[in-house]
């Protein structure tokens, strides 16, 4: 699978709406700040997704507008002030919805790209 190997070398581009779901998912575990969110996504995707701050900040603003997350200033474990984002009830519901949609999307894609082995 040389294609996959090739793709591993440079980060993947985000599909429309992907970043929002990833942010919601990263906040499902615990509230986090922007840097933490981008680190989480990078680590969990094993460097396949590198979040550009130029996309992360507008995405956070959109999620705030939709009232899926809220933001609040808190001290980090090593004593630095940071803005922590937290899922709202609405956000939690949206995450569940998005997860099942993505699962269907992935299944549909793989059914087409890799038909019954």
């Amino acid at each position, binding site marked *: 699978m040389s294609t996959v190997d090739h793709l591993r070398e440079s980060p993947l581009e985000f599909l429309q709406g992907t970043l929002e779901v990833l942010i919601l998912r990263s906040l499902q575990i615990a509230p986090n700040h922007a840097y933490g969110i981008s680190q989480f996504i990078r680590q969990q995707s094993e460097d396949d997704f590198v979040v550009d701050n130029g996309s992360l900040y507008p995405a956070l603003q959109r999620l705030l507008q939709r*009232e899926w997350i809220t933001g609040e200033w808190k001290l980090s474990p090593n004593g630095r002030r940071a803005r922590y984002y937290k899922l709202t009830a609405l956000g939690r519901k949206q995450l569940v919805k998005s997860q099942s949609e993505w699962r269907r999307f992935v299944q549909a894609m793989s059914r087409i790209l890799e038909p019954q082995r």
Partner: protein
Amino acid sequence: MMREWWAKVRGAVLGRGDLADLRDEIESHFELAREANEARGMSPEQARREAAREIGNKTLLKENAREAWKFPRWESFWQDLRCAVRGFRKSPGFTAAVLLTLALGIGVNTAIFSVVYAVLLRPLPYPASERLVWLGESAGKAIDIAITWLNFEHWRAENHSFEEMAGFHTEDFTLTGRGDAVLTHAGVVTSAFFELTGARPLFGRLFARADEKSGAADIVVLGYDFWNRRLGGDPGVVGTTLDLNGTGYQVVGVLAPSPKFFERPFDFCLPLGPREDRLNRGHHRSMHVLGRLRPGVTLAGARTDLDQIMRRLDLGDPSTEKGHRSYAEYLMETRTGEIRPTLVMLMGAVLLVLVLACANVSNLLLARSTERVRELAIRSAIGAGRARLARQLFTETLLLTFGGGAAGVGLAAVCLRLLQHVAPPDIPRLSEVSLDVPVLAFACVASLISGLIAGMTPVRSANKLDLTTALKEGSAASGRMRHALGNLLVAGEVAATVVLAFAAGLLVRSLAIAQTTYPGFEPSHVLALELQLPPGSYKTDNAVETFYKSLNERLRREPGVEAVGSVNCPPSAGDCSDWWYSVAGRAVRSREDVPLTLQNVADADYFRTMRIPIKAGRDFSSADQAGTLRVTIVNETLARKWWRSPVEAIGRLIKLGGPFNEGPLLQIIGVAGDVSQMGLDTMPEPEIYSPFSLNPSRAMVVMIRTAVDPGSLAHAVRRDLASVDHNIPIQSLKPFSKWLAAPLAKRRFTTFLLGVFATLAFALAGIGIYGVLNYWVKARQREIAVRMALGAQNSRLVAWAGSHMGRLVAAGIVAGLAASWAASRWLSSLVFQVSPRSPSMLLLALAAVVFTASLAAAVPFWRAIHTDVVGNLHDF
């Protein structure tokens, strides 16, 4: 996403709280990243660099986040608007010219459209008004004759096409017993009339079918205004009695305010039924019928239906009415048919004015965009896409057109006030004209379309922009393109102006002819007293005759009075009555061929008083009393229709009613000169006069010829009338010249408006030609300088520029002539005694256009021959 949009709106209004500490957040982000990098074992310097790289451009990041709160499309539009306003402020002359031109174009269009909408397009104010039909009878050449009661009853009972039918006519009654005797106006209607016209009772009841029966009680339903004004809004009026023409009518109800149906609103309604002698099938009063078609039934279908009933009646009743059929037209047509050609013509004229305005604005925009080629090229070079540039140009144009449109609506409001002041009162529904929603929508659409048309050319030329040349050479680049468009615009403007000038010329000529036409009598120094004797107190012919005789004698004795004579239907009053006739010894083949004549009644002094010449035979005399043969005077048109000269008509016999209807035999004793019976702008029609002594009529107009100012005798006339009978209301008392002027008022009004529009067209076309030529000369300054340096004479230069202009104007004139030829079809109903294709009028229009064009060209030509040769050659 609704919630997101709402949050943005809220953010825009209340302030975007989440953005306030964005800078802190990004700073803390940086610190967190730096610490993490150090924790991973980087040196402090390396950790800082790595974190800075990860964060990127902090300002851009902040802008990106802020972006999420904006409406990108809207804000770029807003940016274009602000930019446009800045640009306009920098060139106030250009902006004012464009705004003024558009305001004129859109203003006159909005004003005229608001009239067209209120008069022609807005539905009539009755329920299901689109299905309301005006019904009458027709027979041979005569259409829209009044309907007999008997026929109406058959139609109402036997038709399959109408939901409802109501008969109606109007009648004047003298009201007594409530203060002074006053003349009142009644609608005499059948029961369904109220439902058809949407009238509802305020108190009491309306009419029922039972009230139409022969022998039913005399009852009356009061109109709201009459009840309110005349009877003081008395709530206990139901049950009281109203004395009309000496008969008591019991009030059974009062109408709520409702839309008016008759041209003159009624004071009250009386039930219409088969009373008196209406049962004869041949008895025509003036009843007409209003019907509401069943949904889906066509006008033709309804006529076929009614005609079948008429045919069946013919078989059962072989009376003189045989061969009568139905007549039907939509009520909307009845109401507006007459004014439609005028309004359509005016609308066409103002649309041409708008086209001219658009052409001029287009020209101005084009000139401006040529000057801005450099600016556009620079924008394009630093990355503005073509679409973005086009959008900006369109935003500018739309801003201009809507600014012009708004000013135009303001102008239209002023114009409407003026229109309603100067318009003749007989244009239906003109008082209802207002700038309401459909009219404003029209103004918006007109602005938008003007913007698109005017803005298209500059945008197109901007799209063809060649970057390199434009940047290098500045404004000269797109000259050729602009020339082609400018030339086209000028030719189009000339064409539109030719059409308007031609149409206005025809109408002005018609008006001039109508105003200077000899009306057939001497109209000045005549005071006209219009009377209608109440039938209650003047029951017999004898009483009527005695009244007018003693009144006229009294008037004759007044100092300053030269002569007094009366007529039933004075000149310019129109068709008071017409009927079939035939000439003894001339066979008429069929009913369709029976000719019609106007009927009138005049006394023995009328022709002398009005100075209407007797062309042959003799005038009426007091000796024309009842004899074996009745006498008549015919007009010259009737006499010449049947005989070679008026003299030959004397002594001949005329049968009124024609061969197929009953009627008296009349002997022609005289032939009177034609008078303009239907108005000054109409051709004379056959007319017969019966002597008053044999046909006394209650309604007469007493003509008083005076040696002094007729108005000064008004008081004496009133006093004389009161001394004969103080219970006679005066219908009107005014100098006869006012009667004569009334039918011309509409023509004068139309001509005035068209004249204004043609003047506008000339001004706009002149400005357009000036603009294009001026640019043409400016763009050729160097060429002209070279020519002059090589020894070209001024005359050669003018000839050169003139041939350029000549070609444009000639092309426009050819197109204008073709369009005028086509437009003359619409004008034919509006002209009087001028051919709608009059070659002399075309020539005159051409001369005017050529003159305007030369005038407009003068300044550019002058500029051309005063070109600064040395300066221009130095610039090489």
